[in-house]
């Protein structure tokens, strides 16, 4: 049995792969063709390389199918639409809150003291809500088990 080095010295070696793949220069192609005209070992080698390539081309190394990738690709779309939905919802809520706040501040029927108490109560609630939401968001981003189905 001959080893790789001996084979390359005597034959055209890796050029056979380049020949099968159509990646050789004109000069290299001619060299391989001339060599193969004379060398039955390399001709056989060439046929086996073509056979191997064909076998891999027709093999099924991934059987997922395009539908699966189409589905998978919908995920970022869902994320995007969900993001837009939340953005619109928050913007709308902020506008409504702004209007309510303006009406409340400029209402002459309510005393300044009562206004301050109300601002403290609702301000406190809003701060607590923000704190909880922030914590939940941080947990969601860093939780490596979030996709695990139980």
């Amino acid at each position, binding site marked *: 049995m001959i080893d790789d080095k001996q084979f390359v010295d005597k034959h055209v070696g890796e050029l056979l792969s380049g020949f099968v793949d159509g990646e050789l220069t004109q000069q290299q192609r001619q060299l391989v063709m001339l060599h193969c005209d004379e060398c039955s070992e390399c001709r056989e080698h060439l046929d086996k390389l073509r056979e191997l390539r064909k076998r891999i081309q027709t093999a099924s190394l991934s059987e997922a199918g395009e539908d699966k990738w189409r589905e998978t*690709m919908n995920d970022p779309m869902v994320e995007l639409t969900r993001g837009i939905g939340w953005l619109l919802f928050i913007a709308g809520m902020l506008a409504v809150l702004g209007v309510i706040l303006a009406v409340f501040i400029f209402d002459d029927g309510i005393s300044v003291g009562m206004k301050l108490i109300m601002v403290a109560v609702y301000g406190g609630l809003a701060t607590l809500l923000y704190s909880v939401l922030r914590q939940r968001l941080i947990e969601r981003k860093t939780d490596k088990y979030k996709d695990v189905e139980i």
Partner: protein
Amino acid sequence: MKNNEMRQQLIQLGNGAHALALQMLGNTDDATDAVHDAFVKVLRKPGGYDAKAGPLTPWFLRIVRNQCIDLIRRRRPGDVAVEELSDPGPGPEASLQASQRDQGLRRALASLSAEQRQIIVLRDYMDLSYAEIADVLEIARGTVMSKLHRARMALREELGRHD
């Protein structure tokens, strides 16, 4: 490139990308995750791809490969079993009919080094040119032919044992 056009091309690349990821990760679920993460990454910033800089395929496969490398880094040692380097396929009946031959090939591929498996998938399964392979694997273009030839020789030898 328009977003829809890019999505369509990425869908067509899905299977090849999955085959590449499978050869790197040895587990079909992890491979699916890697391809999915690559899709998310690309579609979040579709402007990141510059058509003038080269074709989409090697660019996308490089992202998939980087996702796989990230997954491998996060793994604990011993998580990958070489025997797992095959996709179980759709089911026992279809598998028996269509893939007895493929299983031999998968087992033979599993015996090669990670780089050899990748180079074979990129050339013979995905039909990438040598320049594109060099781009994906981030190796010198001049070394692709010799690495590929060695990988093919090794695969042929392994097939002789597994068939």
